[in-house]
């Protein structure tokens, strides 16, 4: 919680050690769609009431969205609305949002989940059809515009879906599901290929 004292942790020596993220760098493509595993990013699961939203927004440098299914982005950092008091904050520039939240005294809960999630980019004109092979939501541009995000399902796995461009999506899944999700998307990609 916010009021817990922040202890300085000793830097873990990584000399000679190599971090191997799940599925690192894998990609696949077919006509009209590509599926790419994205590089690691900093992520937090953030929960806080309406009273804490302003202070948290200020600390994170972006306005935490209030409207369902919307996200806010600034530079390489994005905040995704997941529930009425819950957000997923993703920072692709390597600046830890957990450190920013530690300075906030308003009541909130911020949990680092950088290594829990693996992100997959699905891009191309057939991206929508690829995802709809396993995601039951309506992903047409009218209902799921650019910047829209939602926690939903893909096949048997839970994912967080974010539309980054008209024909591009970011799929966030749990690390242990990443193999399944990537294989599923590969199969779906072949079917959806124009």
């Amino acid at each position, binding site marked *: 919680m916010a009021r817990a004292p922040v202890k300085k942790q000793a830097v873990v020596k990584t000399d000679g050690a190599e971090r191997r993220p799940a599925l690192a760098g894998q990609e696949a493509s077919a006509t009209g769609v590509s599926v790419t595993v994205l590089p690691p990013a900093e992520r937090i699961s953030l929960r806080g009431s309406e009273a804490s939203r302003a202070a948290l927004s200020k600390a994170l440098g972006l306005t935490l969205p209030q409207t369902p*299914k919307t996200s806010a982005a600034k530079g390489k950092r994005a905040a995704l609305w997941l*529930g*009425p008091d819950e957000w997923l904050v993703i920072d692709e520039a390597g600046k830890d949002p957990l450190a920013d939240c530690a300075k906030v005294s308003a009541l909130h809960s911020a949990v680092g989940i950088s290594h829990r999630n693996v992100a997959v980019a699905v891009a191309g004109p057939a991206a929508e059809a690829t995802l709809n092979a396993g995601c039951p939501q309506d992903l047409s541009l009218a209902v799921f515009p650019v910047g829209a995000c*939602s*926690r*939903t399902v893909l096949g048997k796995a839970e994912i967080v879906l974010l539309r980054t461009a008209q024909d591009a999506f970011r799929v966030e899944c749990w690390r242990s599901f990443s193999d399944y999700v990537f294989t599923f998307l590969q199969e779906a990609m072949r079917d959806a290929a124009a």
Partner: protein
Amino acid sequence: MLLIRCPYCEEERPELEFRNAGEAHVVRSSEMTATSDEDFEAFFFIRSNPKGIIYERWRHIHGCARFFNAVRDTVTDRFVMTYKAGEKKPARLPKVGK
């Protein structure tokens, strides 16, 4: 596939994102120690199981993760309406079109 309106997401979502969580408006006694065995049994085990309109708790587990209440017809499996958790049982139900 059924489409269920989540009162928190303010939108109809596919049923795969939801999970049923039993009957709604089952009130736990504030004087649990004074409750007789019969009353406790009725509170804990006995559910109305009607043929027709039922008030249920549902959870948007693969969405906003919130619990909410839904009014459903057990015969047609049609959702009559949904409302937020903590809100009172609706006094009047909207008319359901065919």
